[in-house]
C-alpha cells in the first residue's frame, strides 16, 4: 500500500515543473488577472512605502484646518480633526489589509478544514461537524463580541482573530457541499479503492475542485472583514483611536454632514476597498483558470 503511494507521489513531482510553467502561461494570458495582480501590487506597495514619502503623519491633527477639500497641500483633503486623508488612507490600508488578510486566512483555514472533513468522511463526523456549524451560525455575533470585548479590549490581533472565527461557517457548508458532489464520482471512488487516505483525497482531488468557491469566498470575505472591523470599535473592540483603518474612514459617513458635504473623507477609502477586493477576485479567477488542468483541452 505504501509503494504505489510513493511512486505516484514522485511522478507527481516530476511533472509539477512543467505543470507550473503551463499554469503560469495560462495565468499570463488572462488579461484581467494580470491587471489585477499589477494593481494589487501597486496598492500593497503604496500602503507599505507611501507613508514614508508623505510630509504629514496619519495622526497629526490640525484643528485650524478641519474638513478641508482636496488641495495641493492635502491631495485628498483633511478629516474632522484636520488629519491628512491621504496619509490616513495609506496608513489605514496597512491595518485593514492586515486585518482583512488575517481574518480571511483564518476563515479559509477553519472553514475548508471542517467542510472537507465533514464532506469526505461523512457519517457521524459529518453530522457532528455540521451541527457545530449550525451552532456557530445561530449564536448572535454581537453577544459573543460583547463578551470578547470585555475580556480582551481593543487590538489588531484580537480583532483579526474574532472576525476570522466568526466567518467560517458559510465556507464550511460550501466546501462540504462540493465534497458531497464529488465524493461519489468515479475517480474519487477509485482513489479510495486504491487505499488513498483522507488527507490525500482532500488535497489531491478536493482542492482543485474547490478553488472556485475559495476564490469567491476569499474576495468577498476580505471586504466583509475590513468593513466589520470598523463596526467593532463601537463596542470596545476593533482598532483603538486614533489609528486609521479603511473601515473607520468609511464609517465617518455615518454623520449625514460628512456623507453629503465632505465626500473626500469616506469615498477614497471606499474606492480603495472596492478596488482591492476586485483585484483579489481577478487574480483568484486567473489562478483558478491557470490551475484547472481541463481548461487547456
Amino acid at each position, binding site marked *: 500500500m505504501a509503494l504505489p503511494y510513493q511512486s505516484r507521489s514522485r511522478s507527481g513531482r516530476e511533472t509539477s515543473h512543467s505543470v507550473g510553467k503551463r499554469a503560469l502561461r495560462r495565468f499570463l494570458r488572462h488579461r484581467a488577472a494580470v491587471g489585477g495582480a499589477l494593481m494589487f501590487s501597486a496598492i500593497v506597495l503604496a500602503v507599505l512605502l507611501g507613508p514614508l514619502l508623505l510630509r504629514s503623519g496619519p*495622526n*497629526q*491633527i490640525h*484643528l*485650524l484646518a*478641519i474638513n478641508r477639500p482636496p488641495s495641493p497641500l492635502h491631495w485628498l483633503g483633511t478629516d*474632522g*480633526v*484636520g488629519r491628512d486623508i491621504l496619509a490616513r488612507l495609506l496608513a489605514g490600508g496597512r491595518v485593514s489589509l492586515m486585518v482583512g488578510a488575517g481574518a480571511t486566512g483564518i476563515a479559509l483555514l477553519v472553514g475548508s478544514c471542517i467542510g472537507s472533513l465533514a464532506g469526505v468522511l461523512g457519517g457521524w463526523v459529518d453530522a457532528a461537524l455540521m451541527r457545530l456549524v449550525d451552532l456557530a451560525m445561530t449564536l448572535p455575533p454581537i453577544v459573543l463580541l*460583547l463578551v470578547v*470585548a*470585555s475580556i480582551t*479590549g*481593543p487590538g489588531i490581533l484580537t480583532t483579526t482573530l474574532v472576525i476570522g472565527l466568526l466567518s467560517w461557517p458559510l465556507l464550511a457548508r460550501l466546501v462540504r457541499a462540493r465534497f458531497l458532489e464529488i465524493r461519489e464520482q468515479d475517480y474519487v471512488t477509485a482513489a479510495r479503492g486504491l487505499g488513498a487516505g483522507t488527507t490525500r483525497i482532500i488535497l489531491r482531488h478536493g482542492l482543485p475542485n474547490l478553488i472556485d468557491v475559495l476564490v469567491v469566498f476569499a474576495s468577498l470575505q476580505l471586504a466583509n472583514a475590513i468593513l466589520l472591523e470598523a463596526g467593532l*470599535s*463601537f*463596542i*470596545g473592540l476593533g482598532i*483603538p*483611536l*486614533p489609528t486609521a483603518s479603511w473601515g473607520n474612514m468609511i*464609517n*465617518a459617513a*455615518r*454623520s*449625514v*454632514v*460628512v456623507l*453629503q458635504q465632505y465626500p473626500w473623507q469616506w469615498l477614497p477609502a471606499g474606492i480603495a476597498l472596492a478596488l482591492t477586493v476586485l483585484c483579489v477576485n481577478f487574480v483568484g479567477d486567473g489562478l483558478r483558470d491557470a490551475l484547472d488542468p481541463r481548461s487547456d483541452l
Partner: protein
Amino acid sequence: MTLAMMTPPALLGTAAASALPAGQVLIGGFDVGPGGLPGKFDPLTATAGFTWYNTYFETLVLYNPGFTHFVGALAKNWTTAQGGRSYTFHLRPGVLWQDGEPLTAQDVKFTLELASNPATGSIFSGRLSDLQSISVVGKDTVTVRFSRPDVNFLDLLTKLMILPQHLLASIPPSQLAQSNWWYTHPIGTGPFQFVKYVPGQYVQLKAFPEYWGGKPKLSGLVNRYFKTVASAAEALKAGSIQFTYVNPDNVSTFAHDPKFRVIAGPSYVVNYLGFNARAPMFKSRLVREAFMYAIDRKQIVDSLYGGAATLADCPYVAPALLGSSLNSYPYDPTKAKELLAQAGWSQLNGSKPIPVLTYYDDQLTANVLSAMQAMLAQVGIDIAPRQVDVATYNSIILASHPDWRKFPIVFAGLQDGPDPSSVAVGLSANNFPPRGANFLHVNIPELTKLFTEAGSTTALSAQTHLYRQVCAEVNRQLPWAPMWVATRYGVVSTSVKNFVWTPSPGGGAYAAMPQDWSLSR
C-alpha cells in the same frame, strides 16, 4: 383574486384618511435624541421622555421654558412652610380626566404614594424616602410633609405625572410597571388623549376637547420613532415629519432654509474628564492641573463643536452660579509640562497608556478624544480612549468591587441644571456607590459640606451663594477636568405655529403648552 377583493376598501381607506382635516395632525420625533425614551410608557419608572408624557399626562408644577422659575400646571398655586419641610398645593378647579371623571386631591395623594413606594420600581422612591405624610384637605388641597427639609421637591414634581386613582387603585403597586394599561388605554388630564401605540413605529394621540386649558388647536399628535438621529433629520427634510431633535452637525443643513426654524439651547449637561480618586497617579493636584493646561478646550469648542458649546471652568456655566476669581486654565502646554515635572509624572506614570472610558459612541466624541489624545501626547501623557455601550460602562463604574484600573479616567457628562444640586450626585462624599453615583470617589470635605448645607437652605439667594462656592472649589481642586456644556438643537417646520420646545435633560419638564400648537398650510 384576494388582492383584487382587498383593493377597493383599501383605496376607500386612503380616501377617507385624506378627507380628514389634513394638516391638523402634527407628526414629530418627540423621543429622538438623549431626551427621549421610545417604547417606555410608565412615567414612574422613566428616566427621560418627559416632553412626550407632558402631552397626555400632567404634573403639579413645571418649569417655565427658560428654566428660570416654576409655574403651576395642575396646581393653581402652592406654599412652602417650615423651611422646606411642608408643601401645600391648591389644585386647579374643573380639571377632568380624559374619561370624564373629575381630578381630585385624592389622585395627587395616590400618585405620591405610588412614587414613594419602591415596589412600583419608581425612580422617585429614593428621593422621597424622607416623606412623612400626605394629607388631603377638601377636594382640592394637598399638604405634603417631610421629616427633613427637601428643598428640591418642586424640581422632582416637574417630572412626576399625576395618575388617576379611580383607574389604577385596583392594580397592586408591585404589578403596576408590568400593566398593559400604560400602552393600551392610559388616561391623563393633558390636552391630548391616547389613541394607540403601533409597536416600534409610532404613538398616536387625539385632541381632548374638555381640556381645562381649552380645546387643543391640533386634532392630533403623532410621535414617530427613529433609531438614528440621522434618519429623523432626513424624514424632516423630506417633509414626513414636522419636528425632531437633531445632532449639532445637522444644524448647518437646516439653518438657511426658510422652511425650518432651528431651536438651540444649553444641554444642561457638563462634559468632563473625571479622574478616579483611587488612581494613585492623580493624587497630586499638579497633575490634574496639567491636564487642564494641556488641552486646548477653546480650540476644540471652536473647531470641532463649531462654537456650539460653552466652556466650563467648573460644573456650572450659568452666569449666576459662577464663583469669583475662577482660573480659566488657558491653553499652555509649557506650563503643563512644568507641572508634570514638578509632580514627578515620569515616576507616577510616565508614558504608560491610561484608559479613558466613555459611553459616547458618536463621531464627534471620537474626534474630540483624538484631539485630546494628540494634545496630551505633546506634554507626555498617553491616553487610550475606549468607547463602550452604556450597559458596559455602568457595569464597570458601578460594579460592587470596581477596579480603578479599568477607568482611571472617564469622559462623561453630568446634569448640572436647571437644579444646580444635581451635580452633588457625582461630587459629594455622601453619594459614594451604592448610595449615590459618585463612582469616581471624589472626596473633598469642603464640597460635601457645601452640598449638605445647600440641601437644607430654602432661600434662593443663600442657595445660589453656596453653589457659587461649589463652583470655585471644583475650579481650584479639580476633582475632574471640567470641559464644556454643549448646545443641543431641535428643528421644527415653520408650518407649525406657537410650538414650544427647548433642550433639557430627559426632555420636557417645562410648560410647552401643546394645546396652543397649530399647523398652517
